[in-house]
């Protein structure tokens, strides 16, 4: 696959070294091109890319608040439509802005059928405020609000399944993706663009600061998530489900867990429990 060399997110922004979110946005914008209008929820991405009077965005971009990216995007989409403009609207929101505080606005926008792409960049906690637990935080992860301790092994609830909640809305195109599989992700963004109606892409992206690993390992961590079956790449086109990538041989979850500080506290029994959960899901998806 040929990936465009044209960048629409300029360097020089304020992201941490090894930031997975900005890799995701760069790839998405390569797939979408110049004729795109972006909407951001409040969060890391918004803060690091638009420190007034600078901006990293080389396409029109708007931010209003944390929980309303989907609603703002709805308004942008209808305003462009009313002017006969055919620019693609894309919303970027983190997992907190999607799975938690923004879920109502997202549900409304998806159900109304706006022609927009919503990309959740999922780093599995509130990273902008300093690694607090979100609905997308996985089982066992230690965050600043679900810390491990004498009486806690960290987050005690499984990750909220937002892509399936979106699929239940009857959204014509729903996909999961990872920044570590750029071709798979770009293909999905292109499909989302081609669809007339809403599309939802849930993009898994490691976060060096929140997960606790060396910034040079971001892509590697994203791969480990997929290769261990901890994150599954699939798409649902008009209700038709396909896994888009199957690891040749699934690695053990420990390889992924032990590479990150957020899981380091887990004992063998707890890690085995996670392995069992992953096995059950992967069996269901024939991975």
């Amino acid at each position, binding site marked *: 696959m040929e990936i465009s060399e044209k960048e629409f997110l300029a360097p020089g922004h304020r992201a941490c070294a090894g930031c997975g979110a900005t890799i995701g946005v760069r790839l998405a914008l390569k797939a979408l091109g110049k004729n795109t209008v972006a909407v951001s929820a409040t969060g890391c991405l918004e803060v690091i890319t638009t420190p007034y009077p600078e*901006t990293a965005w*080389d396409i*029109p*971009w708007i931010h*209003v608040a944390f929980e309303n990216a989907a609603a703002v995007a709805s308004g942008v989409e209808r*305003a462009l439509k009313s*002017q006969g403009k055919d620019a693609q609207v894309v919303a970027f929101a983190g997992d907190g802005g999607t799975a938690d505080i923004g879920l*109502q606005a997202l549900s409304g926008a998806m159900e109304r059928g706006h022609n927009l792409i919503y990309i959740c960049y999922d780093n599995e906690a509130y990273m902008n405020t300093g690694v607090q637990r979100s609905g997308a935080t996985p089982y066992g992860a230690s965050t600043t609000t679900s810390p491990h301790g004498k009486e806690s092994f960290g987050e005690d609830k499984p990750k909220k399944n937002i892509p399936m909640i979106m699929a239940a809305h009857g959204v014509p195109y729903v996909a999961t993706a990872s920044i570590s599989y750029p071709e798979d992700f770009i293909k999905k963004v292109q499909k989302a663009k081609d669809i007339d109606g809403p599309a939802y892409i849930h993009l898994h992206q490691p976060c060096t600061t929140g997960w606790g690993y060396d910034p040079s390992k971001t892509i590697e961590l994203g791969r480990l998530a997929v290769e261990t079956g901890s994150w599954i790449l699939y798409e649902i086109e008009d209700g038709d489900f396909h896994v888009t990538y199957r690891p040749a041989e699934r690695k053990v979850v420990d390889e992924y867990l032990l590479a990150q500080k957020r899981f380091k506290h887990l004992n063998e029994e707890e890690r085995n429990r996670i392995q069992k959960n992953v096995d059950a899901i992967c069996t269901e998806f024939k991975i």
Partner: protein
Amino acid sequence: MVKKVFTSNRAVAEAVKLAKPQVVPVYPITPQTTISEYLAQFVADGDLKAEYIRVESEHSAISAALGASGAGVRVFSATSSQGLALMHEILFAAAGMRSPIVLVDANRALSAPLSIWNDQQDTISERDSGWLQIYAENAQEALDAVLIAYRVAEDRDVLLPCMVCIDGYFLTHTVEPLEVPTQEEVDRFLPSYNPYAFLDTENPMSIGTFTDPNYYMEARYAIEVAMEKSKEVLAKANKEFAEIFGREYDLVEKYRCDDAEIIIVAMGSVCGTIKDVIDSLREEGEKVGLLKIRVFRPFPREQIKEVLENGSKVAVIDKNISFGMGGVLYSNIKAKTNADVYGFIAGLGGRDITTEYVREIVEKTKNPSREIEWIGLKKEEV
């Protein structure tokens, strides 16, 4: 111009149709709902060429309005009470992003206890959001205010959102005769929308950015400058409005104030009742007048000072309460005049402000015992 008999909600919907917004995100709430319904029907019948977005909350209504405004079109929304409170966060963002949204609020009490009836606590509580606020006395004023609101909000010297406040039920559900202007007249007054800064793929711009302490105060100061400037812009718009439509408006309305010994200050539909009482009192030889505050933000402090500082006693009627302080209009008036000012909390949660109550307010202002009085309170129920 056509003579009609409409509720204020219908009058507002007619004004919106004439103003031709391109995106209308709305969410139903009593007593605003019929505005959304009329607009839905206008769109369904092809009489209003707008994208009507059936959002899932008021928070999303104002968010979608702000997004659409950012994308360069004229927008409209309407709400009431709890809905306006839910919009609170985004109201500030709309002003900060200098988005000339026009929103009509059907004034209704805020919970708790839950009440669907009228007072002005909802809009008064948003007074610091950076929105202009116009309060209508009747259906004609409601219709006219919507047109003036667009004209002023979109002025390059203002670029601030504007809220038109109409009393729930007293206006929203009461039919009155009014004049509905023609499209040709409205087009002369309100030119088609020409956005200042918007999302344009040919000229990419970032809107709603993150700002550190080096720039935030300047952005807020610019809003204050625009708010002050809007007084001149309102005056000019009112003048042109009078030339085209024959109805004259100012930021305030003086009713029999010239030789008045007591001046009542109030906003909204109650002013009609007050004028009737003043006419009766004048016949009885009492020198009472009314200063109606039509525009609450920007606060017309120069006109207020000029009218009130003739040695007169002032009675301010508030359909709101800032607990521990008294009515907000009262505090604002008191801050801007040296006159002898008394505050009266009345009409909360739909309690009628009757002619008897207005007379009681006049009496209590003549012989004051307290700075702030609650009128029509059932003391046995407290």
